[in-house]
């Protein structure tokens, strides 16, 4: 039986044990057109469950893979700041209202501080545990194999969905091919357990759900750039 894929990165619980996570709400730049990979990839809309980073201009943008930077922050993917949980304001038919997704390339007047700027609410990845579906069968396709990757790290991989409400959707999933012990900085997902469906999942199929934490965070106030750092463009 195939597992039912559930879109995006989903909040499960917080490290601190809080009932509910903190929410950060920030604008999206006028005309912003999310693309999954730097210099390549696919144009997508922003959807609930997508990871985002600070664009370092007051706005949020999709976490991109394939960044290929070097130096102290040597990473080949963006560090994520948070995961989208809602859009309190998007422009629909020329007027603002809450929406389930942000349409790529939405332009508006008044700047990011104006009343027309689309807003995106995110759950910070720092201190929280999320669920994400694996993009392939894990190892031998058994429960034991899935449990054996707990403690390993992996990248986010996008497999764009061109159907469904909010399409095209980035569709972030855990890249099984990357799973490794230790791992480089760009392997920003640390697997900490199986998803809540537990034994009811089909481990011989893709989309087994894993609980993950983010190891590399877009949090500039931390001092160790190898672990916490601003994104280097």
């Amino acid at each position, binding site marked *: 039986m195939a597992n039912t894929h559930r879109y995006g990165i*989903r*909040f499960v619980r917080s490290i601190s044990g809080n009932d*509910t996570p903190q929410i950060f709400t920030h604008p999206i730049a006028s005309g912003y057109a999310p693309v999954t990979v730097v210099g390549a990839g696919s144009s997508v809309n922003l959807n*609930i469950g997508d990871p985002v980073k600070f664009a370092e201009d007051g706005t949020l943008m999709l976490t991109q893979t394939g960044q290929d930077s070097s130096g102290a922050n040597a990473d080949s993917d963006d560090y994520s700041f948070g995961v*989208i949980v809602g859009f309190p304001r998007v422009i629909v038919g020329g007027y603002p209202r809450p*929406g*389930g997704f942000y349409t790529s390339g939405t332009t508006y007047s008044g700047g990011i501080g104006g009343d027309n700027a689309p807003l995106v609410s995110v759950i910070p990845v720092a201190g929280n545990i999320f669920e994400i579906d694996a993009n392939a069968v894990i190892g031998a396709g*058994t429960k034991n194999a899935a449990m054996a990757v707990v403690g390993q790290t992996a990248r986010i991989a996008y497999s764009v969905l061109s159907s469904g409400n909010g399409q095209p959707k980035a569709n972030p999933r855990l890249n099984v091919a990357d799973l490794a012990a230790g791992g480089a900085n760009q392997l920003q997902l640390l697997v900490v357990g199986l998803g809540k469906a537990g034994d009811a999942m089909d481990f011989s199929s893709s989309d087994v759900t894993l609980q993950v934490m983010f190891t590399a965070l877009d949090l500039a106030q931390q001092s160790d750039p190898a672990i916490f750092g601003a994104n280097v463009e």
Partner: protein
Amino acid sequence: MSEIFTSTAALALKDTLEDIDTDEHGSEGSKAVFNKWCTVKNMTDNYIEYYEIAGGGLAGEKPEGESIPVGTIIEGPLTRFNARTFGQRMIVSEEAMEDMKYDKVIQAAKRNNRSLWKLVDFDATLMLVRATSTSYVGGDGQPLASTTHVLPGGGTYSNMFPSAQFSPSKAALVIAQAQLMQQVGHDGLIDGVEAKKAVFPVQQWGIWRELLGSSYDPTPGAFNAINVVNRDMNLTPVPVKYWNTTTTNWGLITDAELGVMFFWRRKPKSNTWVTEDKTMMNYGITARWSRGWVNPRGFFFSNA
């Protein structure tokens, strides 16, 4: 996705919709399938245990003047059922609660109820899915279906076809019935058990309907013969829609005590609370249960 905000279902913020297309909710427990093929019981402790004891086998002839032969009892394995806790919660913003115009959009408590009752069935069905998996064994160290279940006094017995596995047919059930008629007891002596229910994936519903419903042999070329499955076995069909890892396996539930069982430690219990500083509503549901088997004679399996 993980929390429900006004933007999660933004089109329901105004009274413009004719209806909401969503899953039906209500009486989820009454739609369950597991209780049609598992014996459902309650457990009152964190874990419960079953202990197998076998008697001394056949009595013997006592020649005149000699002592009566001595029998004894032999212990088998202890089977322990640990209560496990399952649950789900949904987090809904106060704004979403206030502004959603349609009851059928959020209905967090009902959706939780559906999620948990579905999990009950999925979890119970894992016993069928894993019937021959040596990673999931019972007290005797064997999976639910095995040709080498262990007798306390030594030796083994089987609760599945010995080698060739059969699709459901009159011939297959005749063979299975004969094997069940000679099923051994805990002491290894032929005892016999009686098949009561047939459990199968829903893809087999048609053939089971023919097998169990026809008073004459449904086998082409043998229509004049009586259908002994219909006339003598009196099986209750239980299609298990959650058994979706196979279309060919099937099993029989017999009248042997302590076969496949499901234990409620606590039935689903809902609660709600508010995270005050964020004005977020939490809707939770949890239940505790365990499932498994003590006596594999309560089951017969075709690994077809």
